[in-house]
């Protein structure tokens, strides 16, 4: 009897251990604006453990990075820079990729398989990976936290744009689960230079903006309407959102308020402890036209051009996305064009909301991490292109069907486009990050016509 109980206890313990990361994943992922299939399955108790586990545990490139050499007690960022940069350079980041960056000649995942087979074999491949990548998550998380805490406390690291170890920080942000959730607010502020800007910081003016007050108010309840922070009318979240949007409309009269901006600010306000003034400061930095010119800080944000009158930045990024498809995914480009599907129909929402409109929040926060550490337009295009590329087999098969037009659009719109990842956002992030050589600010200039 005792031994029987013992076994039960062990089994219970095991169950608790395996569900711990699941809970974390739910917290992170379970707050989209519409009731997602994800949330619905959680509500219905039909939790797919493997799926959530994979989201929480999966660390595509963590093994490739020299994370294990950093101990918390003797950690000194500057001392380690050269050493770690050397390790970084020596590390083959491209190893273990199921999706090689060689865009011209690769064989596509499912070109010779049916879609069903593709899904089945993808699942099998995924399970293998899971087994290979079993490692203590808490260690990774702890190391990430230690690293980013050290960065924040290092007096020489005051300005991200000027530090020598920026490549190391970028690599850390790319690895594992990115910036630890508990440090996201501080790291985002630091990356944006929002806490240390030498030029006069814009002081938010929360006076109601006569031109845009009505439409701002109208959209408060229509931004993340199912997220706990924003769903309560006149609740704390909606008030903060109103204040930041108002402050921006006052700050930048030409741009004012444009629909989409509320979706872009909301994820900033979702970070623990983020004040309206801080969110405003990060947001101003994201919108600024400046940046990218200096060799020291090559990050470009300049999101403002997407939202001003006539939306020139949006038309440009749509054009760049179109060109990338035409050059690197010609078969898909051709099929969609024949159907009459243009990127405006599915990607304008992605770019105008930085993917926040219908993607799970854990993915959204990772995209924000990358935008802030690497720049906005190139990051957005890496993701939009990676998503199309991963969906190419299913889109080509669907395009050939009777209702190809609407069926393809149904795949491309909303959350459906992520189904191919089976909940494993790490694969999407990996898909996007291998595109460095293809999609960079300098490469994109050739598509600026």
């Amino acid at each position, binding site marked *: 009897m005792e031994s029987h109980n013992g076994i039960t206890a062990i089994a219970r313990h095991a169950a608790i251990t395996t569900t711990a990361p699941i809970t974390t994943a739910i917290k992170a992922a379970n707050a989209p*604006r*519409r009731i997602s299939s994800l949330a619905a399955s959680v509500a219905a108790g039909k939790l797919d453990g493997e799926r959530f586990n994979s989201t929480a545990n999966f660390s595509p490139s963590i093994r490739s990075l020299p994370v294990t050499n950093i101990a918390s007690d003797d950690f000194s960022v500057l001392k380690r820079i050269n050493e770690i940069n050397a390790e970084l350079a020596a590390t083959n980041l491209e190893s273990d990729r199921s999706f090689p960056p060689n865009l011209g000649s690769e064989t596509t995942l499912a070109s010779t398989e049916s879609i069903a087979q593709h899904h089945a074999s993808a699942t099998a491949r995924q399970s293998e990976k899971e087994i290979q990548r079993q490692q203590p998550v808490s260690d990774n998380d702890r190391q990430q936290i230690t690293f980013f805490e050290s960065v924040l406390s290092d007096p020489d690291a005051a300005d991200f744009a000027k530090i020598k170890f920026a490549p190391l920080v970028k690599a850390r942000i790319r690895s594992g689960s990115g910036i630890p959730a508990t440090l996201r607010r501080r790291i985002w502020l630091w990356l944006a230079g929002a806490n240390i800007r030498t030029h006069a910081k814009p002081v938010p003016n929360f006076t109601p903006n006569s031109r845009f007050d009505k*439409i701002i108010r*109208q*959209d408060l*309840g*229509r*931004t*993340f*309407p*199912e997220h706990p922070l924003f*769903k309560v*009318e006149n609740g704390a979240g909606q008030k903060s959102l109103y204040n930041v949007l108002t402050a921006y409309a006052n700050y930048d009269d030409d741009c004012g308020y*444009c*629909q*989409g901006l*509320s*979706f872009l600010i909301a994820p900033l306000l979702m970070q623990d402890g983020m004040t309206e003034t801080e969110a405003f400061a990060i947001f101003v930095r994201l919108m600024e036209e400046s940046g990218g010119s200096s060799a020291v800080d090559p990050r470009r944000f300049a999101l403002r051009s997407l*939202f*001003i*009158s*006539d*939306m020139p930045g*949006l*038309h440009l990024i749509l054009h760049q996305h179109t060109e990338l498809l035409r050059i690197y995914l010609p078969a898909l480009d051709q099929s969609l064009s*024949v*159907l*009459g599907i*243009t990127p*405006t*129909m599915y990607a*304008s*929402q992605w770019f*105008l*909301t930085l993917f926040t*409109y219908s993607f799970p929040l854990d993915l959204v926060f990772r995209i924000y991490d990358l935008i802030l550490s690497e720049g906005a337009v190139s990051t957005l295009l890496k993701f939009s292109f990676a998503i199309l590329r991963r969906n190419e087999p299913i889109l080509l098969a669907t395009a050939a069907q*009777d*209702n*190809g*037009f*609407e069926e393809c*659009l149904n795949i491309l*719109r909303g959350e459906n486009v992520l189904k191919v990842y089976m909940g494993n956002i790490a694969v999407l992030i990996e898909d996007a990050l291998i595109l460095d050589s293809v999609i960079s600010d300098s490469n994109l200039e050739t598509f600026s016509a």
Partner: protein
Amino acid sequence: MIGDSGTGKSSLLLRFTDDAWLQPEEVAATIGVDFKVKIIDVDNKKYKLTIWDTAGQERFRTLTSSYYRGAQGVIMVYDVTQRDSFAHLETWFNELDTYTTNPLVVKMLVGNKIDKDGSNDSSRQVSRKEGEAFAKRMGTLFVESSAKSRSGVIDAFVEVIAETPELYQKTAAHAARAANTVNLDQQNNQSGESGGSCC
């Protein structure tokens, strides 16, 4: 579907395609352009509609203007409890005239949110007579609707089909195949349905 932000375009469309109603606090604002397909029976004939739902804010028009091209019908929506959305209709008509390539495009004016009529906080600001008179002056069809109560919603879409000559009359004359050749978005309609496109 066009009209000012917040007039209920997406809600009208959702009621029409899915017979569903979401509380205002459940609906996210439309960013860019949304899209739905609906197959509907009119006089025992199946019609397949491709409907584009556009964001209402003015600066989105550079994005949405391409959807006017070749549209067979346009549903213009205002909110009967918001005078502004009615006053802006002239601008929407100009917009339509500028971008539409189809001289026979069917225009339907819809005064939405009539369920709010009489409620305290948001009573009607545009009377049915005013709406009718404006529609008559502009030569458009007219319906008042409530996406919430279903009133007028199906009428708005069915009227557009019934008034679309290349769809309705030809199909009535069993010329469905001919209608398909004017279908939009290069869809190959192989199910014998007539296609139509609205925005």
